[in-house]
């Protein structure tokens, strides 16, 4: 049983380390930001997930504490990683305006939100608001 636990923990650690490394290798190896983005969002997140799972099992198995709070970090990372990636991509597109021409059309009347806004700004009706002191 202990061996099994050890095995599980070890495998998780190794997998975690491996995926994290892969993510970082990808980030170095891949040619441009958008492709690089694929590596850490997935691999690194999984890598840290592996480490967290290892920790969970380890503390539950060896220290006798039911250690589940690692779930929280994992969940948090899985929630935030794609959003980070999304914004990094957007910022990259914005920084490199030349990429705009390479983008496919949205199929809608409006373009991509990084470049185009809605024609009708529906939310700029009270300029006084900014002048109103914010205490």
């Amino acid at each position: 049983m202990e061996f099994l636990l050890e095995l599980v923990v070890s495998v998780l650690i190794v997998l975690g380390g491996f995926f994290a490394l892969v993510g970082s290798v990808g980030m170095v190896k891949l040619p441009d930001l958008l492709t690089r983005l694929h590596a850490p969002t997935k691999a690194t997140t999984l890598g840290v997930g592996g480490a967290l799972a290892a920790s969970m099992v380890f503390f539950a198995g060896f220290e006798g504490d039911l250690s589940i709070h690692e779930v929280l970090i994992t969940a948090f990372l899985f929630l935030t990683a794609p959003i980070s990636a999304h914004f990094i991509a957007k910022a990259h597109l914005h920084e490199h305006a030349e990429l705009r021409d390479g983008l496919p059309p949205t199929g809608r009347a409006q373009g991509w939100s990084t470049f185009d806004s809605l024609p009708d700004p529906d939310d700029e009706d009270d300029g006084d608001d900014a002048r109103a002191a914010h205490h």
Partner: protein
Amino acid sequence: MITHALNFGFFALSLAVLLNLWRLLRGPSLMDRVLAVDTMVINIIALIILFGIQQRTTIFFEAALLFAMFGFISTVAYCRFVLRGDVIE
């Protein structure tokens, strides 16, 4: 066995962090560097977790949690800065 696994984990993650540093040095664009730091933070979280296993302590959990939270927030802040200039508008 766990010790060896940990050693491998430390090795892999350290290497990963160094690769992140390389990307941070090289860039070329700001977003590349933001991505590098973002990834570095995640790798560091993994390192912290492994360190916790090695030291048999859960005392670093909150640090890992805050690293995750704040890493995300600062990444978003940088993105917003690039996108809009004004982080809060």
